[in-house]
Structure formats: structure tokens, C-alpha cells
């Protein structure tokens, strides 16, 4: 079997085995299959990576598995494509994915649906690999929808709770809205180019004669898909709710991998976006708005996972800023570092929740640093990384994004930089707020909860340590440079180059300012924060209401749709207009029959008179017209 196919197929095999046999064969089997398959995939991805590098790194590995459908001259092939971008993505997915699988063996230890959980997780890895390894947009779309399915299954993993199941549904539907855009973009590409292979799409757009289609239109349509999957404004509403799933799922799907699929898609179709300045501008604006607004919401969240969820949205916004200013390599760099530190944060949060027996409200935490030291240490490293404290991973990637937001020749502007930097400042603030409220200060836990606090098992803390190391050192991996042959960096605007050092200093200062403010406000518990909240009550209400986007959607879309369906279509259309007129015809016929029936009186004489009259009338008519 071919290498890439095997990489993709292994997690699928894990899904089938665990799904069918897992519940019967017990935990050891589930562990071996559930963690073994992604690990094996990871090993094979490394092998493929070595092969790629051995071939000079520019010659992608290509495999065609089979022809899905042939219609006339067009054929849709299922094939895989492994270049540097796919390599980075696949390494992150299988690497971080495997770690999270291992973590889950500890976290989900006592769950009744253990085998089902690992089956779903493997299914997710399968679809995610399909997404990033697919050569054609069609395969990518299969993976795209598939990860949505896995996400739906895993968000609603504890389906007995209707709220959790509803969160899964919301995620699915919101993603579907994006998918409609993806489909249209795909159709448009197919219509004009006759192929969906992404390498050929890129090639077509970099050819001398540009295709007869607006690259911006294609770009915008595909970006609509990306906003759904990557939770960008206005389709970001599903991600916070998605935190209803088990925490490792939030780490894997809703932080490290799936939500970055949109970033991958835009980076992969770099060739299109190079020729789509309008689309790129839209991406940059949406990205920076998302980064900023989500960060403001994160400031007031009190659920540990919700803070991280809004932080994820915000960080994804940063990646889209990079994409929008023509620096996809930097976006992918941030994607990787984000995968490390955000996975670490989520898993750390999971460890906290685990230790506190399910408590997620940071107002009822505090002082955990001494009780669960490993979790605290790793969480602190990751927090510093996301806040952009040098020399941790987040500093490098975020700094490059900020730099290109400022100076990129294709769309960078000081305004963009100002907004992005404010978001970075907010990031540092809310992350350290989280750290203070959770781990430092004095305990605000119930005595009952505090009594049971315990450090997590090695399967969990070990993973945290690995991820913390990656969060610390991941920035040193020159991913952007590695991707440069594939995703060239944009030119710097004239006369901007000498600002670079200044900007680095400013961004470090901003991170430290965030740290200082958070320490000042939350260093002594909740009191100062709460007094601030009451002083700025309207703002606080706006932020903790998440700008009331959910409410707006319900009022503008949900209820009108319901009203239209139930009142107009069903009551007026089906019941009154269509069935009403039919039933009306039926009863009219019955009434008419009742009236006409009276003529048949039973009197022979009367019948005779009628017959004669009829005969006479027809004779007369014939006479007249004869």
C-alpha cells in the first residue's frame, strides 16, 4: 500500500476497530488501537517527510488512489499530495493529535463511552488528514465536512445533556453555512478551470494568461467556507458553545487542528489569493476584527474553557490577518505554535477541571499552583507563549504577523497593525488574568472541592510537559522559512524596513503591559476586577453578552425562518391555500350534488317531461343550426 494512503487509512482503521470491537474487547485494546493508529500515522508522516526532504523538498509526493467518478470528459480522482505545507499540517495533526490521544486515556479513564470516544477521535484524525493531504478540492471538502461530522459527534459526546447536543447542532449548522460558500467557490473553479486539483488551480492562476474568472470572487466564496470552519466573524458563534465537548476534544479539534482548516485552505490556494487583492483585503479586515473583538470578549469570560475558546477565535483572527496581507507562511507558522500552546492550555485546563471534579468557573478557583504544580508550570509557560513573551513560541510567530500587518507590500497598513497590536495587548491581559485567577492568589474553592484536588496522572502531565516544551521552543523552528519556496513572503513596503526593531520592542512592551495590568487587577483576587466591572457596567454587559450576536441571529434569522415556515408556508400555504382550496372544491362538489340530486324526484311523469323537453330542445337546436 502506498505511503500517503496508509497514513490516512490507519486512523480510519482505528475508528472501525474501536467502533465495532472496542466496547467488547476492553480498555487495553481501545488504548492500543486508539493511540497506536495516530502514532503509527505520525511515524509514517515523518517517513514521508524524510522522503520529501531527500527529494530536495520541492518535489511533492503524489498518489492517486482511485477515480471517484467519471462524467464525460471530467473525472474526479481521489488522490493525495504531500508537499511542505501538507507535511507541516500532517505533522501537527498526527503529532499533537497523538499526544492528545494519550492524554485522553487519563482524562476519559472512567467514562462509559470510552471506546466510542476513541473511535470518534480516530475518525476525526482520519478526516483531518484527508483534508490536508487531499490533492483535489473535492477530497479536501470530504475531509472538511468529515471533520465537521466528527466535531458534531464529539461536542455532543455527552448527549444526555440537551444543551451539549444543541451545541453540536449549532456547530454543524454554522459550518454548513460556510460550506455552501465553499461549494460555490469550488463550482466556480471547476466551471472555469475544469479541474479541482489544487496544484493545478494554483498553476492556472500563476500562468501568464489568467483564467477567465475573478480570483477575488473565488477567493471570497472559499473564504466564506473558511470563516465557518475557522470561526471568524460572522460565523464565529459556534466555537464557544463547542466547549461543551470533552476538554481534550476542545484541545484537538477546536484549538489545534480543525479550526485551522480555513487557514490551511487559504494558504493552500495561495495562487488564487495572490491575484485576489480584494479578497485578501476582506480576509485581513475580517481577521483583525475577529482578533480584536474576540479578545475583548475573552476579557470578561469566567468559564476557563470559554476564555480559551475566545482566545482561539482571536488567534485564528491573527492567522487570517497574516493570510490577508499575503504572508501565508507566517500564518502557518502561527498555526503551528498556536497548536502547541493552545493545546497545552486546553489540556492544562482539562487537568484543572479534572482536579476540581468538573468545576469550570475561574471565580471559584485560585491558589491551585501549589496543589497541582506540573499543571501550573506548563500552563504558565503556555500562557507566556501566547502572550508573546520572548523567547517563547508565540512571540516569534505573533511578532511576524504584526510585522507583516504593518509592512506588507500587499495590504499591510499601520491601522491594521494598531488593531492587531491592541488585540495582542488584550491577549496578554486576559491570559494572565486567567493564570492569576486560576492558579495564584488565595483559594476561592468550596472546601469539599478543595479537599479533593489532586494532580493528574502521568499520562496527562507527561503530555503537558511535552507540549509546554514545544510551546517554549517551537518558535525556534523556522517554519515560515521552511515554507518559503512554496509560500513566498510578501515584499516589505518601501521605507518601512527600518521600523522592524521598533515594532519588536513595542510588541514585547505590550505583552509586558498586559502582564502588569492583569497582575494589578487580579493579583489580589476578584475584588478589583468586580469593581471595575460595576464602574463600566454598560461595557461589561456588552462584552459578557458577547455583543449579543447570538441574540441577533435568533431574532434576524432563527425566528423569522421559524415564523415563515410555520405561519406562512405551513398554515397559509399548505393548509389554507392548497389543502383549503382542494377541500373547498370537494365540499362544493358535494353541495352541488345535493342540489342537483333533487331533480331526480322519483316521479316517472316528471322524468318523461324532462326527456321530452330535452328531445325537443335538441331537435330545435338542430333545426336552428341545421
Amino acid at each position, binding site marked *: 500500500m502506498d505511503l500517503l494512503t496508509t497514513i490516512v487509512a490507519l486512523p480510519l482503521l482505528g475508528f472501525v476497530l474501536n467502533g465495532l470491537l472496542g466496547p467488547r474487547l476492553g480498555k487495553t485494546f481501545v488504548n492500543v488501537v486508539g493511540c497506536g493508529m495516530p502514532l503509527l500515522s505520525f511515524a509514517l508522516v515523518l517517513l514521508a517527510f524524510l522522503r520529501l526532504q531527500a527529494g530536495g523538498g520541492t518535489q511533492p509526493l503524489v498518489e492517486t488512489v*482511485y*477515480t*471517484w*467518478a*467519471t*462524467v*464525460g*470528459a*471530467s473525472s474526479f480522482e481521489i488522490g493525495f499530495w504531500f508537499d511542505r505545507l501538507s507535511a507541516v499540517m500532517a505533522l501537527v495533526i498526527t503529532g499533537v493529535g497523538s499526544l492528545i490521544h494519550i492524554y485522553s486515556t487519563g482524562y476519559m479513564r472512567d467514562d462509559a463511552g470510552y471506546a466510542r470516544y476513541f473511535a470518534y477521535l480516530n475518525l476525526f484524525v482520519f478526516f483531518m488528514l484527508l483534508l490536508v493531504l487531499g490533492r483535489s478540492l473535492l477530497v479536501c*471538502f*470530504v475531509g472538511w*465536512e*468529515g471533520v465537521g*461530522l466528527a466535531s458534531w459527534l464529539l461536542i*455532543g459526546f455527552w*448527549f*444526555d*445533556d*440537551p444543551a451539549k*447536543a*444543541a451545541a453540536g*447542532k449549532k456547530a*454543524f*449548522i454554522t459550518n*454548513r*453555512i460556510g*460550506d*455552501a460558500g465553499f*461549494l*460555490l467557490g469550488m*463550482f*466556480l473553479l*471547476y*466551471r472555469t478551470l475544469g479541474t479541482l486539483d489544487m496544484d493545478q488551480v494554483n498553476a492556472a492562476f500563476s500562468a501568464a494568461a489568467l483564467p477567465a474568472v475573478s480570483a477575488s470572487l473565488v477567493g471570497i466564496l472559499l473564504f466564506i467556507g473558511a470563516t465557518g470552519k475557522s470561526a471568524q466573524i460572522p460565523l464565529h458563534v459556534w466555537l464557544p458553545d463547542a466547549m461543551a465537548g470533552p476538554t481534550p476534544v476542545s484541545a484537538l479539534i477546536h484549538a489545534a487542528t480543525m479550526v485551522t482548516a480555513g487557514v490551511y485552505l487559504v494558504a493552500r490556494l495561495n495562487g488564487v489569493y495572490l491575484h485576489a487583492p480584494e479578497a485578501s483585503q476582506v480576509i485581513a479586515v475580517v481577521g483583525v476584527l475577529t482578533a480584536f473583538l474576540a479578545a475583548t470578549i475573552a476579557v470578561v469570560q469566567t468559564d476557563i474553557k470559554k476564555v480559551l475558546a475566545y482566545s482561539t477565535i482571536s488567534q485564528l483572527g491573527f492567522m487570517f490577518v497574516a493570510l490577508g496581507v499575503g504572508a501565508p507562511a507566517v500564518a502557518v507558522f502561527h498555526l503551528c505554535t498556536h497548536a502547541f500552546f493552545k493545546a497545552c492550555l486546553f489540556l492544562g485546563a482539562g487537568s484543572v477541571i479534572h482536579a476540581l471534579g468538573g468545576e469550570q468557573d475561574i471565580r471559584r478557583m485560585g491558589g491551585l499552583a501549589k496543589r497541582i504544580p506540573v499543571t501550573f508550570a506548563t500552563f504558565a509557560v503556555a500562557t507566556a507563549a501566547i502572550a508573546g513573551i520572548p523567547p517563547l513560541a508565540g512571540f516569534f510567530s505573533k511578532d511576524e504577523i504584526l510585522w507583516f500587518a504593518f509592512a506588507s507590500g500587499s495590504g499591510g497598513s499601520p491601522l491594521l497593525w494598531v488593531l492587531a497590536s491592541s488585540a495582542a495587548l488584550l491577549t496578554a491581559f486576559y491570559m494572565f488574568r486567567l493564570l492569576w485567577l486560576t492558579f495564584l492568589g488565595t483559594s476561592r474553592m468550596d472546601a469539599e472541592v478543595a479537599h479533593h484536588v489532586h494532580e493528574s496522572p502521568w499520562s496527562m502531565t507527561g503530555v503537558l510537559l511535552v507540549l509546554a516544551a514545544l510551546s517554549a521552543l517551537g518558535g525556534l523552528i523556522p517554519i515560515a522559512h521552511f515554507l518559503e519556496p512554496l509560500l513566498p513572503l510578501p515584499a516589505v513596503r518601501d521605507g518601512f524596513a527600518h521600523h522592524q526593531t521598533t515594532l519588536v520592542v513595542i510588541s514585547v512592551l505590550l505583552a509586558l503591559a498586559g502582564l502588569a495590568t492583569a497582575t494589578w487587577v487580579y493579583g489580589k483576587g476578584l475584588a478589583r476586577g468586580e469593581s471595575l466591572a460595576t464602574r463600566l457596567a454598560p461595557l461589561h454587559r456588552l462584552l459578557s453578552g458577547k455583543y449579543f450576536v447570538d441574540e441577533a441571529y435568533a431574532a434576524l434569522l432563527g425566528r423569522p*425562518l*421559524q415564523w*415563515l*415556515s*410555520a405561519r406562512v*408556508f*405551513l398554515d397559509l*400555504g*399548505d393548509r389554507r*391555500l*392548497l*389543502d383549503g382550496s*382542494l377541500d373547498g372544491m370537494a365540499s362544493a362538489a358535494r353541495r352541488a350534488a345535493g342540489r342537483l340530486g333533487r331533480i331526480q324526484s322519483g316521479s316517472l311523469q316528471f322524468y318523461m317531461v324532462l326527456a321530452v323537453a330535452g328531445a325537443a330542445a335538441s331537435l330545435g337546436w338542430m333545426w336552428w343550426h341545421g
Partner: protein
Amino acid sequence: MAEPLILQLVLWLPVLGMLAIACLPQGRDGLVRGLSLGFMLGQAALAAWLYLAFDPAQPGLQFATDVPWIAEWGIHYRIGMDGINVLLVAMTAFLGPLVVAGAFSAINKDIKLFYAMVFFIQFAMLGAFLAQDLFLFYVFWEAMLIPMFLIIGIWGGERRIYATVKFVLYTAFGSILMLAAVIYLVYALQQRDGISSFAFTDLYDRNLPLDAQLWLLAAFSLSFAIKVPMVPLHTWLPDAHVEAPTAGSVILAGVLLKMGTYGFMKLGFPLFPEATQVFTPLLMSLAVISIVYGACLALVQDDIKKIIAYSSISHLGYVMLGLLSLDLIGIQGALIQMVSHGLVAGGLFLMVGMLYERCHTRELAQYGGLARLLPVFALFFTVLTLASIGLPTTSGFTGEFMVLLGAFNAAWPLHEAGQSLPLVLAVIAVSGVVLGALYMLRLAQQLLFGAARAPHQPLRDLDLRERSILVAIVVAVFALGLFPDSALRKTELAAREYQRVVSGAPATPESAP
């Protein structure tokens, strides 16, 4: 060459089955069931063999039989397989045993008559698909009404009489118009060209005057559109589905509705190509309205069967859209979508039936958390729900994707030429996928998730018979989703021919490229 005989056997086996059941003594219920299943399985096996033997490279009819019936009017008993009906015949034969097996526990009244009626309708449906003679087609078309009338009217729910009368009146109304059109068509051609023939092949490419075409197509369309059903001619469907027994719903959704789209594809559009051009904007709009309207209505139903019934309206809107796009991918997608909907909606109706047998209610609000109570049921229901939503790797995706791609493909050049209606419709149809997810997930969510509750407890999970039925359907759903290529090859030449005839291109001696 034994294939023509086998095709005859496939068609007539239900009649033999009917006779065999009729000969059985009263009260031997087990025997009746076993024999019915045996006949259906035999038929399915033979049909599968024919499906495999069908040569995709050969244009036109295969395994054909042609015997004069009423020779002086040119009416023949003309039966054969072609690329348009090959998938539908295979699907009909495939669903047959599942319908029979699904009714084992549900039907306990007048069992002999029931299975005889199932055989009767199976015969009529296969006949309508296989007929290559307009008169013969009409006979089979009308014959379908009788068993369906009885199946709903005898074994149906509380309002079965209302439902069955509505169903029959609606369809009969359409059929009468079609009969008039058939007679006029053949008569007019005979007057003009002196040849009296009802053979489909003699009726294509005849260049009727446009005004005659318009009237004839209007009559045919009305009849077919009622069957499909297209909004606003659809209100018989939810009632019929809700009142019909499970087997009736499966036959109705699985096969009977495809009669409408099949009729459009085999007769309506190719017989009257110029009129089709005139009608396309109207019909395409109605198709897209059906997609949205059906989905919206499915969203607010409280009865599980009604949700699936309205979803059928929506899904068949996609089929119509594909057929009208006249794009090869769209046409092929429409054919796949027909089969896919037959499998998925049929499977869902079977599952609702299984649930109804256990709990005796179809009211959605009564259920919750079945994933806890009936895990195997929940697994199958989830798979079929996802197939209905059109998730990749299921047949629903293959159909929807190709239909939408075809519609878009055809609409884009028109848009560039200044005619934007098709593009607008295609875009709305694409948005329909969101609505599809909305109502199906609402159903699955309420049924499977949340706190566990059901009207009757404890519930027993699916037994071996029920599992086997669903496994067969799910395997077919995935096969068509993952490997549609062999099916597409079988239909390609016919789809091309349809495209050629309807778009009005002159006949070429070599229709293959």
C-alpha cells in the same frame, strides 16, 4: 442469450409470487411471509445479475423484448433496460425484499392480500420503468394506483380514507390529462406521418409544432409533477405518508416518487424538447421552490414521518434541478440522487416504522435520548440522517454534489450571457444544503439525544431481521457514496442521449464521443 428472458422473469416474478400466495391456505402466515421474501429475494438476485451484465458501452436498449400487442395501432409489449432505468430497476428490486421483511411484524391483518398487493405494485413499478411503449407505460402507470390505494386504505392509520382518496384523486387527475395527451400525440403523428406507433424511440425527434408541444408537455408535466411531487402539487404526499403503513411509505418514497422524475426524463422532456426550453424557467423555479419549501416545512413538523415526507419533496427538487440543467454532470447527479433518495428515505421510513412498532407514536416530542435506550437503532439512524444531509462518503453527497455542480455549470455561462435566473436558482439550491442539515439534525437531535425517554419502556433494540435490513441499506448508501463510478458509467450514454435530445441537437449516428 438468456438475458431478455431473465428480464422478463424479473418483471413477472412478482405476479408469480402473487399467484403463489393466493394459492396458499388461509392462516399460514409464516409461510406467506417466507414465500414472499423468497420471491422478492429471487427477483433481487436476478436483477442484480442483470445490473452487472448491463453493458455500459452499448447505447440503446438491452435485454429487450418486443412483441406486438395491439398491432393495428402500433402498440407493442416492449420491455427493455437502458441507461436511464437500469439504476432504478436495480433499486426497486433491491428495496423489494427489504419492504417485505420490514413488514413481517408490522402487518397482521389480511396478510395474504397485503403481500399480494406489495407484489402487484412491485410488478407495476418495474413495468413502468421497463416499458418502452407509451401505451404499455400508461397501463403500468395506472396499475400502480390500485395496490397503493388499497395498501393505504386498508392497512393505514386513522385518517387513511382521507389520505388514500386524496392520493388517488390527485394522481388520477394527472393521469387522465396524460392519457389525453398520449392519445393526441400518437394521433397527431399518425395524421402527419402516417405511422401509428407508441414506441418511445419512434416518438423522439419528431419535431412537433411548438404550440402542440406546449399543450402536450403541460399535460405530461402536470401528471409527472404531481407524482414527484413538486410544490404546489405536493399536499397529498405528507398525508399519504403519514397514513400509509411502513411498507407503503417505503414504496412511496423509495420508488413511486421517482416515477415522476423518471417520467420527466424519459418522456416529458425528450418528447417535447422545444416546449421544454420554454418551460425550463418555470419548472426550474418550481424545483428550487420545492427544495426550500419542503425543507422549511420539514423544519416545523411534529410528526417524524411528516419530516421525512417533506424532506422527500426537497430532495426530489434537486433531481428536477439536475434534469433541467441539461449539464451532463447534473443529469448524472440527478440519476444518482434518485437512487440515493430511494435508499435513504426508504431506510428512514423503515426505521420510523421500527420505532412505531415499539412505541406506537410518531410524535417527535414524545421521544428523547434514544441513543441511550436503543444504541444500535441510533447508530443506523445517525448514518441515514447524515446521508440525507448529504455528507461526503454517502450517496446523498454524490447526488447533491453532482446536481449542484451541474446546475452551476449550466447556469454560469447563461449568467455571463446576461441571463441570471438559473444562477440565482443554483445559488439558492446550494443554500438548501444548510436547511437540509437544519431539519434533519433537529430530528436526530430530538430523537437520539437529550434525556432518555420514550412512551414505552423498556425498549428492545433492533433484532437480527431489522439489523440485516438496515445493514443492506447502509452498505448500498456507502457504496454509492464512495464508488459511484461504475453506476455512473452505466448511465452515461443514456444521459448523453437525453442531453442531446432535449437540447435539440440533431441525431448523430454515433452518440458516443
